[in-house]
């Protein structure tokens, strides 16, 4: 076999090997790390699985944010304003943009009582305080009477 053919063979082997490795990595990695998004309706009606990492979102119900007496536990209710409400439980720090009456995203698992155990609370949103995932389901942010319950430091 001359050198050129051998080089070509090496190149082809690398190409095929690379493709195979990529395909294997992609498939195994995707299986575990793609998180489907569920709007409140599908969380409440049982479409959303329990014990699997999913994403959900909704509007934080005014006055529903309750901090534990000690520690960093907090719970709040997410809604779509159409009768689908579910409870979220999170231990940790809430993001700066978290507000009652606005849309947020949560990543985590539903437990057996269908309480959403959030490992991450995200407040990514656009100018209308709406996460892009929820922009299509026809709900709007509303102002709460007691603004800024997360930041009484600046309430005065």
């Amino acid at each position, binding site marked *: 076999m001359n*050198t*050129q053919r051998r*080089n070509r063979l*090496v*190149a082809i082997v*690398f*190409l095929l090997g*690379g*493709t195979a*490795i*990529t395909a294997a*990595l*992609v498939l*195994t*990695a*995707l299986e*575990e*790390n*793609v*998180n*489907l*998004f569920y709007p409140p309706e599908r969380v409440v009606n049982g479409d959303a699985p329990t014990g699997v*990492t999913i*994403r959900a979102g909704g509007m934080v119900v005014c006055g529903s944010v309750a*901090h534990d007496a*000690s*520690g*960093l536990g907090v719970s709040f209710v997410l809604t779509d304003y159409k009768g689908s409400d579910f409870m979220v439980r999170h*231990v*940790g*720090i*809430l993001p*700066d*943009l*978290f507000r009652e009456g606005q849309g947020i995203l949560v990543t985590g698992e539903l437990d057996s009582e269908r309480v959403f155990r959030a490992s991450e609370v995200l407040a*990514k949103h*656009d*100018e209308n305080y709406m*996460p*892009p*995932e929820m922009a*299509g389901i026809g709900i709007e942010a509303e102002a709460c009477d007691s603004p800024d319950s*997360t*930041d*009484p*430091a*600046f309430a005065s």
Partner: protein
Amino acid sequence: MIVEIGHFAVVAALLVALALGVVGHVSAVNGTWRSLAATLASCQLLLLAFGFAVLVRAFFVSDFSVAYVAENSNSLLPWYYRVSATWGAHEGSFLLWTLIMAVWTWAVSLGCSRLPDEIFGRVLGTMGLLNFGFVLFLLATSSPFERLLPGVPAEGADLNPLLQDFGLIVHPPLLYTGYVGFAVAFSFAIAALVSGRLDAAWARWSRPWTNVAWAFLTVGIALGSWWAYYELGWGGWWFWDPVENASFMPWLAGTALLHSLAVTEKRGAFKSWTALLAIAAFSLSLLGAFIVRSGVLTSVHAFAVDPERGLFVLALLALAVGGALTVYALRAPTITSRARYGGFSRELLLLVNNAILVVALAFVLHGTLYPLAHEAITGGEKTSVGAPYFNRGFVPLMCVLACFLALAPVARWKRTPLAMLRNTGLMCAAALCLGLALPLVLGGTFKLGAAVAVALGLWIMFVHGADLWRRRDSTTRGYLGMALAHVGFAVSLIGIGATSEFSREVDARMAVGDSVSLNGVTYRFAALRRIEGPNYIAEQAEFVTDGGVHLYPEKRHYPVREQVMTEAGIAAGFVRDLYIALGSTLPDGSWGVRIQDKPMVRWIWLGALMMALGGVLAVTDPRYRRLNARARSRREPQNAGGLAAAGGARGYPSPAK
């Protein structure tokens, strides 16, 4: 009035860019319009610089009759944020993009003045056509010069507080310089394909430009990572966010291109592959622009969603990529490569480098676009791809890449005597021992990731250090640049391994006077005070460690946008960062506090800076100047191979092995 003149200057720049596109390609054929093309490149730069200066001035004097200024600035902003607010949103940042494109075009017209007509003309012409598309996009969908008349607001809506930071001043200009810089490599590839001169000389001409663009992109990405770390990431430095990936994919393609260009220049091989990579790097820059500016993907820092803009960028992307690939398809089959190389050679290592980088690129591209494809196929079902997906594929690939990188200095062109590998093997064994021992001793526990990262990083450093020592009397700047960049990669690798495996964090509920211990350090919440900034009020906490380090995290409240921002308190260090961020206040007046201990996190960015410096250092190698002057024929002995390859590519056979 001045704003309208600025707007007019940009319209004029549009026509000049089109003229440059035509004149450039015509001058490639007739050769007489060459100086006209260079003049047009200068004109384009002057006009866009004027338009940009007008917009900066409008921000500086807070001219709220300009809609873009009113939406993104405020008279209370300090002057440096008013100026950098110019590129704080879509319209102004794209004007900056076109300006940087004009700067590159002008630089090419100066720096390549001695290149043959057909290359010079076609490069400038292609860049002119590209910038015509960009300026047209700017004027048609996103002009920053539109007025709010009548009804000028008394005050502006303010710059997003997230962007009121040193990061905004430097990150976008550097990043865009990198993105747009790949347009030069792209245009060189098009010029070489069209004129049929896809040879070693072409590789040598486009190499310095690619290096510089790549160095800018490297620094831009590193700055973005650092910014995210201290400003919005709560201590995270990379999130695999679509917008981060948008900048990282051209970087991966550009890195592959740098290495492939080396083979094409020195050995005349990989020619059509190199051209394809040059096209890919810039196409991915455009894809990045599409992802960021269309809002199709959920991201932390996307611009406001506008489908019209997205469509326009998509059309630009399709035209540029489609056109380039058509030229490629027509021309590439006529290119033959005569270079030969044996089993273990530098060519083979660089081929492996390219294969790994392209696989990594495909992996990142797939993960980034997967949610889009999924939504299209399922009819609107939203998904997101988590960071573990990317880490699962990317980390092993980079470890394999690091193994081959460690062999780089010992490999020779064509064939490497296996005896040369003996020392490398010894160094590998030494690095492996240290890699197992060091993280265990310094970190306290065994962590596989840290051990692998330290072993690979040290191996790379040992091999490059030994080779530098061996060549201490005869190094070239090109070689030094390579060594510096490779050691930079090793430094980043060690930093990533140590930070990922040994970072510790605790979320605590703390009131003034409370203490928390983390990783052997006790942090005391010493005081809380209210401070006033130019356009915000803040609660500033003071934390004192038992080692006497003071940290001052803040919670800032920006009244104009009713927005709250976290400013982390960081005690930065070469060995470790101590990092405190204030969460929210709780009903009883205590605070949620996140305390982090991040060992060696600075190494990540230090390594990136070394890579960029290495890229620039290689450009200062005198051989590029000699080439441009085309004068002296005296060359160092090491370059003999390059000469022969250049000759081989022009038609006569390469020296037989």
